[in-house]
């Protein structure tokens, strides 16, 4: 087994299209790292460069302590799992799984043992003599996994391996993959565009953004919790979390001795020390980020705390929780990062209108009805602050 290192890696397709710039990531031996980001951000490109299926235009990639830039795919000792599984239709499940071992001239008996063992772990023993055509999507997925694990490679590379499965199966396979990883302990680099998948599976998650100029694609790499609690910029903050973080332009003001955040007629008092150094009483306009769960209805939150009174424009009652949508009369936050996130949803800034829209997650028993007003208490210790120009966290 081995770790994987990206050292200032860049990729230019066909001598002109830049897909990757300046990506450096250190993956420890045995670590499960997820590359996540909107489609087109370069996840597959990075993975394919590790596999040797794309050449590396700039920088170095190491598997273990060997630089693999010029090593043929077959000599890299990795196993890749593809989105469409790429199982061979002319071979049985057994032969598909044994393919890599046969190429290495592994003794017959050992092949049999390893395939049998992998089939047992993945619960596909009954299907070993079938052709892939006669399997369901979930079963094919397992065979593709099996083909990778029998080789006992230095690392697994997985490119959206669950995205062809239906939602229920995806959740099930997600936890099975997790179990498999803790059992085998093989270094895994896993690509997905689904931030929930990324957060639930990764030891660490690397958030990537499509290239702009030659700024690095890599926005932040951290544990799921760290990403959620301390996003480094608006892109990460907006990409991680569902429903997404609310952003609003606010001015740092003062009310007597207390510091306030003022926006659209609302004024939230924040405790001393809640704001980053140098911002207090600065009168500066910044971007404030509020996670939906940082709101609560007054009657559920009890007395005290900063609050804002809003009118619910839409209420989604889920039983376990309720989402209250409301708007504040402030121009919406638009930065390059926000536009990149909107593009992923297939819209652009014009869809935001001229107000700032909020989503609050509240206690379902206390949720207002549409059109009713509600007093929302804001947990001001959970606020995020960003530079309106650069989008970086303050």
């Amino acid at each position, binding site marked *: 087994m081995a770790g994987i290192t990206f050292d200032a890696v860049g990729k230019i397709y066909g001598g002109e299209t830049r897909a990757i710039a300046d990506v450096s990531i250190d993956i420890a031996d045995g670590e499960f790292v997820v590359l996540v980001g909107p489609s087109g951000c370069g996840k597959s490109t990075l993975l394919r460069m590790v*596999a040797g299926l794309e050449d590396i235009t700039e920088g170095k990639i190491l598997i273990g302590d060997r630089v693999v830039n010029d090593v043929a795919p077959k000599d890299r000792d990795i196993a890749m799992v593809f989105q469409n599984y790429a199982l*061979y239709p002319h071979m049985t499940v057994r032969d598909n799984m044994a*393919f890599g071992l046969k190429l290495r001239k592994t003794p017959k008996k050992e092949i049999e043992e390893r395939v049998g063992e992998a089939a047992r772990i993945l619960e596909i023993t009954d299907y070993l003599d079938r052709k892939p055509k*006669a399997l369901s999507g979930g079963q094919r997925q397992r065979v593709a996994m099996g*083909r990778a694990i029998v080789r006992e490679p230095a690392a697994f590379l997985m490119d959206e391996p669950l995205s062809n499965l239906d939602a229920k199966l995806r959740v099930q396979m997600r936890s099975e993959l997790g179990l498999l990883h803790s059992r085998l302990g093989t270094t895994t680099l896993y690509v997905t565009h689904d931030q929930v998948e990324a957060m639930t599976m990764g030891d660490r998650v690397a958030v990537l953004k499509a290239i702009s100029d030659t700024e690095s694609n890599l926005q932040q790499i951290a544990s799921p919790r760290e990403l959620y609690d301390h996003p480094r910029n608006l892109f990460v903050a907006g990409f991680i979390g569902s429903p997404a973080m609310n952003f609003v332009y606010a001015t740092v003001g003062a009310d007597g001795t207390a510091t306030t955040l003022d926006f659209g007629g609302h004024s939230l008092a924040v405790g001393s020390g809640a704001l980053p150094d140098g911002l207090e009483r600065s009168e500066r306009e910044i971007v404030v980020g509020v996670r939906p769960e940082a709101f609560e209805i007054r009657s559920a939150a009890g007395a005290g705390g900063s609050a804002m009174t809003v009118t619910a424009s839409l209420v989604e009652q889920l039983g376990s929780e309720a989402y209250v949508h409301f708007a504040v009369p402030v121009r919406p936050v638009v930065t390059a990062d926000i536009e990149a996130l909107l593009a992923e949803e297939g819209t652009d800034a014009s869809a935001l209108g001229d107000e700032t829209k909020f989503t609050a997650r509240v206690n379902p028993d206390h949720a207002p009805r549409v059109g009713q007003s509600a007093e929302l208490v804001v947990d001001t210790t959970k606020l995020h602050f960003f530079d309106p120009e650069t989008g970086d966290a303050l």
Partner: protein
Amino acid sequence: MTEDQDSIRKASRRREGRSRTVQRPRRPPAFIAIPATIGLALFALPVLGLLGRAPWSRLATLLGSDLALEALRLSAISSVSAAVISLLLGVPVAWTLCRYDFPGRSLLRGLVLLPMVLPPVVGGAALLFALGRRGLVGSPLYEATGLVLPFSTGGVILAGVFVAMPLMVLTVEGGLRSLDQRFERAAETLGAGRWTVLRRVTIPMIAPSVVAGIALTWARALGEFGATLTFAGNLQGRTQTLPLAVFVALESDRDAALALSLVMVIVSLAVLVALRDHWWRSR
């Protein structure tokens, strides 16, 4: 797990397996059935006509004649040779056209397909100008080696390759194009070098197209007439293949022509049906 549960599971799996193969209805609606019947009749009637008029009682004698035996032998040799040469040359051509990007590729593709639309007589004449004893390539070839292609069995084979190879290129290129390259990439990551990928993945996966190509080129070469006549002539025992023998016999001995035609129909039909069943039905 109890035996009961196990058998239930097996049964449900079997059902699952069956539902995967789509049940096709037996009869098309009238607006398809009527034109389809006319179309099929167009194929079937000439064959039936041949069968009806065939001199069944004298068949053995007719096919035992020198003319017939020599034509049969020559057709067997030349059509199989043409198919084999088309395989050896056509697959690399298809590969090049499909997998590489270079200037002039569309021109080359057009060139390769030209023999399919050209009247075979024109093709034969073109071959003659190029490879005849005084031809562009033919004359230096003759001077260097004394080899003369026109009016030889080699010429028959060459004419067959010329008209039939486009079918090989077309089917194999189609097969390669529809092969998702991720299959080959996956093999590389599993430890396969270029040759192994080719041998264990690419070739098995395009095998159905290659076999289809072989069948089509062979059948096309077997039926070749115009280019052969122009380029190789009509010499009994040397260049007179079955179609040429039929043409000659139609003038002199109608029954012999019928007998030879019958052989061609039956052999071709048998090979095409067998190949189709084996390779194309499962697709």
